[in-house]
């Protein structure tokens, strides 16, 4: 495996096989940007797929090429961590529709020689998963020891278990949901409207010109609030002023929290494509795993042999514990082997990306139990 060029860091490949999208489009060819860590064992039974969140990418445990920052989940993935390259062959793939190398609206449409922009087909979470399955076929991996994801990554993990039950032995779903609520959709719509209201957006045809950075930045600011908790914001910023002793009686970033959000917005536009933001938020809003099953979530998991582990955080109001519990009830009704725990954290939805020793202990025990079966 050492000399297999399909495995390693910063891989890219163009696969000709079409991905059949929920919209009816057969999308081909598909470009994949992905990374792998660790060796696939002889019987190919140690592959773990890590699914990333809305603005995440394949750089789970290696430095981001644009920001230079360390991987986004080094607390969970790495030597001595629950997901360990010494034990696992870890695969992470930039999702379809994103902008870090996999096919998305910024990619070149081979039929026109220009970027797709809004001609890129609307995709769903299931489409992302179907595309990942095509790449796993290419890698020669039939069965995953586990598929693991937080937030939108958790939606993919659930969809993997529902779409390909025979290919997934274990699924870890953290801070996630089986459907987008009206409130979830509403926040995303604010973000999309901010992007589309930016004149530079130009109906998506901005490639080669200035990007709609102002709109994307506002979208990120609105979304970022939903990733934190009120208590967390209060503790971090309170009503403290930013580099000043008194209010300016103007519209500068007087408050620390304003300055922080503006920074979050501005730094985001350097690494993310506005159209990808539109497409991926749409995919999340369309997500309702029960919908193809007459609204009965348990039917999505009927007869499943996959083991499930769900973790939620008590201060996460984006995908609150009730959503995880709804999944657990469905898994119980389906007779699935399910584990679930709500952990305590002051950090809201983002808790799954931060230090959470209890989360690591649970994931480690859950994965090891699957390996010893």
């Amino acid at each position: 495996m050492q000399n297999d060029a399909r495995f390693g860091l910063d891989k890219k490949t163009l696969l000709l096989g079409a991905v059949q999208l929920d919209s009816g489009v057969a999308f081909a060819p598909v470009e994949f940007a992905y990374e792998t860590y660790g060796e696939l064992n002889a019987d190919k039974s140690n592959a773990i797929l890590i699914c990333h969140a809305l603005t995440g990418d394949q750089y789970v445990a290696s430095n981001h090429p644009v920001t230079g920052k360390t991987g986004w989940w080094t607390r969970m993935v790495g030597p001595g961590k629950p997901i360990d390259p010494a034990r696992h062959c870890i695969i992470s793939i930039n999702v379809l529709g994103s902008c870090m190398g996999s096919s998305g609206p910024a990619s070149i449409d081979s039929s026109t020689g220009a970027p797709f922009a809004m001609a890129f087909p609307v995709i769903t979470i299931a489409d992302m998963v179907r595309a990942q399955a095509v790449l796993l076929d290419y890698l020669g991996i039939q069965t995953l020891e586990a598929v693991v994801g937080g937030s939108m990554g958790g939606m993919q993990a659930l969809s993997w278990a529902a779409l390909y039950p025979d290919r997934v032995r274990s699924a870890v779903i953290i801070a996630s949901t089986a459907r987008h609520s009206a409130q979830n959709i509403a926040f995303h719509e604010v973000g999309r409207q901010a992007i589309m209201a930016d004149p530079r957006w130009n109906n998506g045809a901005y490639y080669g010109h200035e990007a709609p950075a102002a709109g994307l930045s506002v979208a990120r600011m609105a979304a970022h609030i939903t990733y934190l908790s009120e208590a967390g914001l209060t503790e971090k910023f309170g009503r403290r002023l930013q580099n000043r002793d008194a209010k300016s009686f103007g519209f500068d970033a007087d408050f620390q929290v304003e300055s922080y959000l503006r920074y979050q917005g501005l730094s985001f536009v350097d690494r993310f494509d506005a159209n990808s933001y539109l497409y991926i938020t749409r995919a999340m809003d369309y997500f309702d795993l029960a919908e193809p099953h007459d609204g009965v979530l348990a039917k999505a998991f009927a007869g499943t042999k996959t083991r499930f582990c769900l973790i939620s955080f008590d201060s996460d109001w984006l995908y609150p514990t009730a959503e995880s519990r709804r999944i657990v009830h469905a898994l119980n009704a389906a007779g699935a082997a399910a584990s679930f725990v709500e952990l305590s954290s002051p950090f809201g939805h983002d808790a799954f990306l931060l230090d959470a020793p209890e989360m690591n202990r649970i994931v480690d025990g859950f994965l090891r139990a699957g390996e010893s079966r």
Partner: protein
Amino acid sequence: MTALRSDLAIIAREVRAHARILDVGCGDGLLMAALRDTKNVDARGMELNARDVATAVARGLSVVQGDADTDLADYPDGSFDYAILSQTLQTTKRPDLVLDHLVRIGRQAFVSFPNFAQWRMRLAHMFGGRMPVTEQLPHTWYDTPNIHHVTIDDFRSFLNERNIRIEGQWFLSGGKPRNERMANLLAEHAVFLLRRD
């Protein structure tokens, strides 16, 4: 392996090998782990306390954080060979409804509980004039999780009303088995194996 509490040891001994079990109020999963390791059972658990759930899952057990009073409704009828409720009945808000679910979900159900009519309890009540605080029920009246105390005779008459059949019964005093005679007066703990008629 840590020695099992005496009522759990009885349940562990009586459960058939390779059975499917649901342990409601499974704590950190000691009984489930013992049954998995010695009887090859397919064990699932439910527990209210997050720390206990985390420990159980880290042990490789399938345990969901949930409340016996609210989270049993989704399990299909007869989906387990045994549903187990050990030392949890007296802590539930509606023990009657929990028991209904238990004998619905499990083809058989094990229920164990401390007997509130044991003579030490009676003495404490009758002569001490105080709520009993004993080794088995070590809590004071204000901080006890045991909100529905029950006696062996109460339990039997409840089963009778609900047409729930007793298929096995075991009694304990000082952690040792004792016979059925005057159990309501003499036994500290009871373990019942039940089936819905």
